[in-house]
């Protein structure tokens, strides 16, 4: 066997996805440290971009004097009320348009017509109808959350494997049995995707609503801080929103793992 050997090229490197957990940590640390250093060296006016350490100190003060908690609770109340209202009605309407032909004929055009409206543009109308207290803020969040849930629930039901429906029907399932025992469980992963989208939208809308008309909440905290040039306070508000979003998502992931156990 004196024939030359020709090794097969290993091309699998392009097919592997590698993990770099330390790079993520290092990247975050580098970002914060650069910011801190830039701020201390006076490269940025502290009025516009305070150092992370200064923000952390201010955060601690706002936690200690209870102001942060007060605004956080005010925002959370609005979010939870609007989110609950919007997601329940969204899922109900999605089931309706997904499975009931008359409901679909009635509902889809209305959804198609109202969905493109930026929800914050409805707020003035809601204030006109509901006054300037909590109701319009809760309503605008509910409307914002309604759409991703209605649309995702609808899509999840429409995408349900027809063989599963046939199996259900072949065993004599009623319409209501099909909804409860076939379509809804089949749509659950899509519904959870909708709940995630809704969570992001609810944060966006609570802040927007509070920026327009409020005397409490994270949006108010941020706007007020900007008016008074208290940039540290503003940064604390932004950081709180970031943490809130992360917590919201983590909570939903936990819930999804508990409910969608079959994957």
């Amino acid at each position: 066997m004196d024939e030359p050997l020709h090794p097969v090229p290993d091309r699998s490197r392009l097919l592997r996805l590698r993990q770099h957990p330390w790079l993520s940590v290092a990247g975050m640390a580098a970002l914060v440290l650069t910011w801190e250093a830039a701020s201390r060296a006076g490269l940025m006016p502290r009025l516009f971009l305070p150092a992370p350490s200064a923000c952390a100190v201010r955060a601690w003060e706002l936690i200690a004097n209870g102001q942060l908690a007060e605004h956080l609770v005010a925002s959370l109340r609005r979010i939870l009320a609007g989110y609950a209202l919007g997601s329940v009605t969204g899922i109900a309407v999605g089931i309706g348009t997904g499975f009931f032909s008359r409901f679909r004929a009635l509902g889809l055009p209305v959804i198609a017509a109202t969905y493109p409206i930026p929800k914050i543009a409805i707020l003035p109308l809601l204030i006109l109808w509901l006054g300037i207290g909590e109701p319009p803020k809760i309503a605008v969040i509910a409307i914002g959350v309604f759409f991703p849930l209605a649309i995702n629930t609808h899509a999840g039901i429409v995408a349900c494997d027809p063989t599963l429906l046939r199996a259900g029907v072949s065993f004599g399932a009623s319409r209501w049995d099909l909804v409860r025992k076939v379509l809804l469980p089949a749509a659950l992963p899509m519904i959870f995707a909708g709940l995630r989208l809704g969570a992001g939208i609810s944060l966006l809308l609570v802040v927007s609503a509070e920026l327009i008309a409020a005397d409490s909440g994270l949006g108010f905290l941020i706007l007020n801080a900007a008016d008074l040039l208290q940039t540290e306070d503003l940064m604390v508000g932004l950081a709180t929103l970031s943490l809130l979003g992360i917590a919201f998502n983590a909570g939903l992931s936990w819930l999804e793992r508990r409910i969608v156990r079959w994957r």
Partner: protein
Amino acid sequence: MLGPSGCGKTTLLNLIAGLATPTRGRIAFEGALADPRQPFTAVVFQEFALFPWRTVTGNVAFGLEMLRLPARAAQERARECIRLVGLEGFETKYPHQLSGGMKQRVSMARALAVDPIMLLMDEPLSALDAQTRTLLQGELVKLWAATNKSFFHVTHNIEEAVFLAHRIVVLSRRPGRIREIVTVDIPHPRDEHVRALPRFGETVDHCWSLIRDEARAALLEPESAGPSVIAEPGLPAGRL
């Protein structure tokens, strides 16, 4: 029920299951009913059609829930049927944790659980690999002997038809008509060894001669490449 792709085997099964509307005529079961609530049929689907969010027991109990059986009785009956198909110990597993052969056994247990007059098997072994398929053919024979029910088995696999059936209804395509009813002259209970009998091979050859030309014609028609393209005025499609 044996026939080439596109001959309407599955459509006929759907009609018997009440999952499609006949354009003409009607389908009825004859005779006095011992229990008016006893279902006429239960279907074992080619794609298993198990509910991924239900455990093995939950899937087998589905039809019993539809019959409004009390939960306890349903669980007990489900367990009984799970034992019958040899899946003891897998009661709490989800479908994605099972092999194809096991999934199809769950599907069979689900159909048996409701105690139908007739079991409708819609190419139940087509989605399985060849070895699993051969094994499950043997188990089907045993299951049939153990339950003493009528099995209406649709297949395009000739050996499978000859191995399982007393009578094979061979269909032609375009139009879907009965070509011949072949009586399989091999005594029951059958086991692996019947495949080696001259009678077995002769019957297979005969059936093949009945459908060979049409199967070849089907090959040249791209739109009827597989049984899945059979037009079914299906309830779900209409509703979704």
